[in-house]
């Protein structure tokens, strides 16, 4: 009877403990805590303008993290995403001429083709040549960096004025009044993220979406079950490239320039966002939407560091420590459980 009573008392704790150990729960919990702290620290946090600013500053990382999540779920990893982002901004700003609005359309088409190309090259290496994903994308990241430096040795370039629609619809002439007023409440960055979510939602409802999970969780059995593993991993890489392309649109809309070295630090941050969001690095598990939560967590941590008056020089240090802590924590818990 004693044991039974102990069991009844312990049960809620067991359930709670098990729920907390779920990666989704802990990342959502962390998100809400950080959200609360930021909301308290920043006085005008809930004003429309400030919300728009927050979304704008987090948008590129969110898009990159979603792409990274798709590749990681398919059993790969993309170390070239930051370099690819820089490359696309360089392509866009090289093709565009300030005085000729039509060049914007050409730039969009060309940059999209380049994006597809980068995805295909990565997919070829990972899916068909079967080189370890880590090292393929490490190699391609330097190839993208090289091409970007050819196009734009120093940051700069020009952009057509209407490209600002990807950043702020009010800044562009000729946009219908309806869209302008919509842009007041729904910034373009949010639309880009929503577009990315819709894209993934559609893909995840198709066979390809399920194949991506299958290939990520066990590639051998996926192959034996008749899934074209090479094609699936290639598609994951292409999807990732499209999301990076969306981030590049936002970046050029915001800054009107291209920069060959701008994306470098974002690569590790996007991987960190995926890990913090609770997606397994081993692939096949977790939801792509969790990457958004992870990116928001990293963003809010950056905000809090900013409010704590920590100098900007410490940002890299802190983000490195967060990554180590985020991946070492769960691994340590697993190790403890195994040892017991």
């Amino acid at each position: 009877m004693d044991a039974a009573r102990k069991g009844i008392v312990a049960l809620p704790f067991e359930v709670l403990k098990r729920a907390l150990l779920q990666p989704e729960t802990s990342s959502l919990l962390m998100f809400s805590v950080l959200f609360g702290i930021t909301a308290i620290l920043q006085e005008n946090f809930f004003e429309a303008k400030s919300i728009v600013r927050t979304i704008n500053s987090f948008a590129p990382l969110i898009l990159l993290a979603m792409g990274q999540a798709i590749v990681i779920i398919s059993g790969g990893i993309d170390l070239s995403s930051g370099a690819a982002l820089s490359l696309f901004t360089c392509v866009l700003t090289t093709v565009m001429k300030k005085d000729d609005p039509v060049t914007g359309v050409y730039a969009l088409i060309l940059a999209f083709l380049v994006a597809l190309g980068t995805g295909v090259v990565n997919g070829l290496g990972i899916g068909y040549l079967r080189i370890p994903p880590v090292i393929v994308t490490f190699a391609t990241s330097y190839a993208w960096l090289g091409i970007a430096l050819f196009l734009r040795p120093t940051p700069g370039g020009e952009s057509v004025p209407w490209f600002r629609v990807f950043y702020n619809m009010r800044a562009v002439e000729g946009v219908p009044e309806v869209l302008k007023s919509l842009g007041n409440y729904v910034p373009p960055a949010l639309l880009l993220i929503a577009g990315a979510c819709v894209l993934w939602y559609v893909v995840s409802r198709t066979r390809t979406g399920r194949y991506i999970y299958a290939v990520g969780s066990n590639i051998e059995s996926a192959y034996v079950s008749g899934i074209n593993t090479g094609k699936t991993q290639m598609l994951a890489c292409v999807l990732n490239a499209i999301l990076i392309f969306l981030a590049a649109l936002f970046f050029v809309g915001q800054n009107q320039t291209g920069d060959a070295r701008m994306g470098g630090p974002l690569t590790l941050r996007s991987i960190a966002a995926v890990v913090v969001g609770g997606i397994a690095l081993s692939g096949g598990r977790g939801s792509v939407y969790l990457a958004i939560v992870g990116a928001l967590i990293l963003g809010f941590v950056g905000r809090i560091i900013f409010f704590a008056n920590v100098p900007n020089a410490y940002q890299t240090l802190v983000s490195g420590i967060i990554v180590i802590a985020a991946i070492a924590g769960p691994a340590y818990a697993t190790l403890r459980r195994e040892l017991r």
Partner: protein
Amino acid sequence: MLPCVENSVKVRRMETFLKKTFPWYGWILGSWFPMQYRKAFTILLLTVLLYVGGGVIVPGFLTLEQILLTLKLAAFIALFGLCQMIVIVAGGGGLDLSVGYTATLTAVLTASIMDGRNAYLGVALLVALVLGLLVGLANGALTSYLKLPPLVVTLAMADILQGIVNAYVAGKAITGRPSPVLVTLAARLTGVFPNILFVLIPVAVLAILVFERTKWEQILFGVGANERTAYLCGINVKKVRFLTFVASGVLASLIGLLLLGNMGIAFKDMGSNYVMPSIAAVVVGGVPLAGGGGSYFGVILGSIFLQALTNLLTALGLGDAGKWLGFGIILFAMLSVYAGNRRSR
């Protein structure tokens, strides 16, 4: 050592390809040629071709001074390549992306300690050793005992180290110079012969002896070739991999001192530019990324090849862009020859 059958199959396949393309290749490589040096020989051939081609395109490229300068710069890549090779050979997807950053931090910290005086070289060495040990211990513990992916851990470690450097130099100039001994060792020439080669050659001989003539060969390469077999033979796989990261960290930190001697001053990203070449040199040098094979001789030849390529691209006026693009393409091409896994599945 445990023969890596799969690996030699790949070498054979590449050789058949080369023999078809260049008929004289088969004539040079008779059956007398040792297996583990075959890839290295191919790289040597590529380097010679690069030099001859470069000499034709760019006048003045094929001179003794140019070649010695290439060797001097390649020595640093080769030294970083040794760190990388130790980690990669032990297998398990090992890779150390923090080597260059460890070197930078050491250089930045010890520059102000030495400040151009020989007397403080001992202190600087001690600082370098401790720092390298700390980085290596952290990398090794996280990867082999917590079973975290080495790539992500060392990438994050690189961020942490660069973050420390950024914080250390924030808002002030980096002061200090290396001690004269280091400058003589790393930057000066004896006659026309760069002194750094007097460091590299003993290191290379030692590394090749350790990798190919001692029991460490069996342990290290055995763990890399087949960790299950090694485990059943009574080797502590985790400990071996842990120790490879420690060795890599300490070596990288000591190379930081040499790098400081060569540059004369410390700056924020002096070492980070060596991370990509160190991995590329290992891959070009024929060390399989899955571990369990390869020779340091090949890595040295690989770094000479890469440095020669860099020099040629610079001479052609392509600069940084051409260098990184060239490295990326070469690495990708070499990987698809060596590292691809076309068999099962």
